[in-house]
């Protein structure tokens, strides 16, 4: 992963093959600050911090990610957290790159291990030639293992020494941040400013300790540690300012930008942070977010607010989506705009609350009684979370139906940098309007495209006849009507809306050649690893392309033609291979295209796809070895928390 390229002055050159013990030794610098000349220029690094959840390793990752965003580097993070309330092993992985980051990285270049268990559980992820940075107060590594470079730093004792005894071992994270800042020649002034911005308000004592620990780390002379790496300057410096958020933040602010002013939900991991943000932010915009008594009430409140003229938002994770499905069915029948966010986690039932899975596709597309067509879209990146939410609001409003956003735990918690949205051109005001309607206004008019909009309460009806919206089958005026011909007509009307939408959509994005040996089809957060798999396969001379589906219901046009150009189609998704050997999207595509060449690459270990896993499964299938889902990686058990 860590790509070292020659610097301008040509001094430390380790292109292609990465660091080895030899070249590390030869490049070792004897004394500290003279970074500029000794630094290896790199374009990409993956650092994994492994400790316990109370050590604040998320904070190290968060600061590094934000710093990257401020210095024109792309960044992607990956974290696992234990499902327990407090404590337990936890990791935070940061990938910094000059240029686009597609995945959080299969292997790590630097492993920072705070404890013996951190070392033991994660040393497998450290690539050959990588650096193990361990707390020599707590970890006894196998120093005979020469695959990687071991650097011991008494993190605990030096931290305690540097900030005084009262804080116990709190502050280790800031110490490590200092060590990393030195190692990668990061912009210390900017980091200090960020620490100040975050910690100064927490009291002088806290702030003093944070700065003390950080400086102690930065100044720490770890002897052989004194390798330095400097990032190659970004090519695109000077573009739009960059921002750093996680996926859930992007969804919350995407909803605000789209004009959402009412939402209701019930807390559930990993959805909760969206509602926490909206509860604080919406009042500033004149909106309201309600913590409902349960999932049923939450979606019912959202339906009520949508009926009242708004485009309301609700959301949850798997179990909550199950509970909301009755009301989703109502919103489809009553033709109400509604946005539902599902932050997928491992299922079924309570399942794996803090792990990722893409196993809610079926319930999102089909979950509700009756013939209940709705729109389902899935964001692929953190930035996409923002824009997909805006799209969802727009579609809900335009088509007067529920729109489900299928995001997932990995996207929800990971941090990425992206260009500052162009708010001036994006922000919408969709406050309800009450222009008089009629005469003969029909809330369910059977229009050519099936689309009709109800009149919110408050709207004067010029003929004095006021409409009722309903979940009973109804005629165009909203009157309950169970006549056979009427049901035929109205079922078709609700379905036709989505068919007309599908016709207007662009074909899905194809990555690579439009024809060839293998097409990898993916959706949601697997986009990055799939693209990286394609890049690697193509670099190795293989004929592999990728297709990413943003719309799961309705499907975008042109997919059949694209599938026709490939000898093999593998649908890559984080769910089970099912009873018949393929996952949920593969099942949907098979039922749509009747094409038995559509097969699956699936896995259920609760972790994002690694590039290697996709390629291995692809090769196995191409070689005629029919294998099941990807089996859990060694060490994945601990990693999954």
């Amino acid at each position: 992963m860590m790509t070292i390229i020659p610097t301008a002055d040509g001094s430390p050159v380790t292109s292609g093959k990465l660091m080895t013990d030899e070249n590390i030794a030869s490049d070792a610098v004897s004394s500290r600050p003279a970074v500029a000349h000794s630094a290896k220029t790199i374009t990409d690094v993956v650092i994994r911090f492994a400790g316990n959840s109370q050590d604040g390793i998320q904070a190290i990752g968060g600061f590094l990610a934000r710093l990257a965003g401020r210095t024109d580097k792309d960044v992607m993070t990956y974290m696992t957290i234990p499902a327990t309330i407090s404590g337990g092993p936890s990791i935070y992985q940061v990938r910094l790159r000059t240029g686009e980051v597609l995945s959080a990285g299969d292997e790590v270049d630097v492993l920072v291990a705070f404890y013996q268990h951190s070392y033991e559980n994660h040393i497998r992820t450290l690539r050959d030639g990588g650096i193990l940075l361990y707390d020599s107060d707590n970890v006894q590594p196998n120093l005979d293992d020469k695959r990687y470079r071991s650097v011991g730093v008494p993190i605990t004792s030096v931290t305690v020494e540097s900030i005084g005894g009262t804080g116990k071992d709190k502050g280790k994270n800031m110490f490590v941040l200092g060590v990393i800042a030195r190692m990668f020649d990061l912009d210390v002034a900017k980091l200090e400013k960020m620490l100040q911005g975050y910690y100064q308000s927490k009291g002088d004592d806290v702030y003093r300790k944070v700065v003390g620990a950080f400086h102690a780390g930065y100044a720490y002379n770890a002897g052989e540690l004194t390798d330095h790496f400097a990032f190659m300057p970004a090519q695109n410096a000077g573009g739009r300012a960059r921002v750093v958020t996680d996926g859930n933040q992007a969804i919350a602010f995407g909803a605000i930008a789209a004009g959402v002013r009412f939402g209701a939900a019930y807390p559930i991991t990993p959805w909760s942070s969206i509602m926490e943000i909206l509860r604080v932010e919406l009042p500033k915009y004149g909106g309201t977010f309600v913590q409902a008594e349960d999932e049923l009430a939450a979606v019912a409140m959202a339906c009520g607010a949508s009926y009242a003229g708004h485009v309301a938002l609700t959301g949850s994770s798997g179990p909550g989506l199950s509970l909301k499905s009755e009301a989703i069915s109502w919103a489809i029948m009553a033709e109400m705009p509604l946005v539902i966010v599902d932050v997928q986690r491992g299922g079924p039932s309570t399942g794996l609350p803090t792990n990722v899975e893409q196993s809610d596709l079926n319930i999102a597309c089909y979950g509700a009684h009756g013939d209940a067509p709705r729109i389902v879209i899935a964001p692929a990146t953190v930035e996409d979370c923002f824009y997909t939410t805006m799209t969802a609001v727009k579609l809900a409003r335009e088509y007067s139906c529920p729109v489900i956003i299928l995001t997932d735990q990995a996207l929800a918690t990971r941090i990425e940098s992206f260009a500052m949205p162009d708010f001036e051109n994006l922000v919408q005001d969709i406050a309800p309007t009450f222009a008089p309607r009629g005469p003969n206004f029909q809330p369910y008019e059977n229009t050519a495209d099936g689309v009709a909009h109800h009149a919110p309460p408050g709207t004067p009806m010029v003929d004095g006849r006021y409409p009722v919206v309903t979940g009973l089958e109804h005629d165009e005026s909203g009157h309950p009507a169970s006549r056979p011909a009427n049901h035929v007509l109205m079922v078709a009307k609700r379905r036709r809306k989505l068919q007309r939408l599908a016709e207007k959509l662009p074909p899905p994005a194809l990555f690579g050649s439009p024809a060839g040996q293998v097409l990898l089809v993916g959706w949601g957060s697997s986009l990055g690893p799939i693209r990286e798999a394609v890049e690697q396969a193509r670099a190795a001379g293989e004929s592999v392309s990728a297709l990413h589906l943003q719309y799961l219901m309705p499907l975008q046009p042109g997919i059949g033609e694209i599938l026709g150009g490939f000898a093999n189609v593998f649908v890559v998704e984080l769910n089970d291979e099912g009873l018949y050997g393929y996952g949920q999207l593969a099942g949907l595509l098979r039922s749509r295209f009747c094409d038995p060449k559509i097969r699956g690459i699936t896995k259920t270990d609760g972790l994002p796809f690694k590039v290697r896993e996709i390629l291995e499964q692809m090769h196995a299938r191409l070689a005629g070895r029919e294998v099941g889902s990807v089996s859990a990686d060694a060490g994945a058990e601990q990693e999954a928390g």
Partner: protein
Amino acid sequence: MMAATVQVPQYTRKDLVADHPTWCPGCGDFSVLSIYFKMMERRQVPHEKITSVAGIGCSSRFPYFVNAHGAHFLHGRGVPFATGISLTRPDLHVFLFGGDGDAFSIGGNHLDHAARKNIKMTYVIMDNSVYGLTKKQTSPTSPLGFKSKTDPHGAFDQPINPMKKLILGGATFVARTHSHLPNHVLEVMERAMDHDGFSVIECLSECTEFYPGAFDAANPRKGGVFNPVPAEHDVTDEIAAFKLAVAPFPGYFGVFFEVQRPTKNALEAKLNAEAQAKAGTVSAVQLLQKTFQRFG
């Protein structure tokens, strides 16, 4: 002086009537509907300022019979649906109609939470103590021993006491009435409408098809006794209200409990005013830009 006092009614009952009710002949709900029309006629509230919503059940057909904006929602979820309207539309008076199954069984939890949050709306629960739409099953207010298709040997689950549940839940207006006494229904309904908060009325409403004579004991025309809430009752006294609530059937009729407590509507509006004052006079665009600059 003379002319100024003359008021020409803008809306008449005729304007408010929509479909003819689908209820069975003699159903107590007719009386509630008729009194609702009378109240609206008296109050002269324009159609577009009313919304009448309901869950599922016989009584929940109500919105179809009122010529005003209305919605027919899900079984038991009328309360949170009405909450969504109430919190976003201070310009509307939200009326919610439903039955005992909707309110006390499938939607029982919502009742407690709308009560404690004090969501501004008027909820009229037409209690017939039986499931009528599904043709005679036991309801949460069916008395012990009631024989239904689901309890052919007589119900033995303790029935819910609506007044106790509502007072305990924190509802700020709790009243009980009887559809056979229209003037009483009108009186409590008007008081409920004027109440700034979550106002709930349990209106005994006979199901002539599946539970005829259920409330005769409280109907003087059928030889029963109608006990109004005693004049000296202090409606702000929760314990006194509880004591009235535990009286054996037919119990008391009138306003059991009424207190003023800030509504969630008002508290959310206050929160918004404070948040907006703190943010200053800025547009949504400026606010988002400012927020995202912090993410840089």
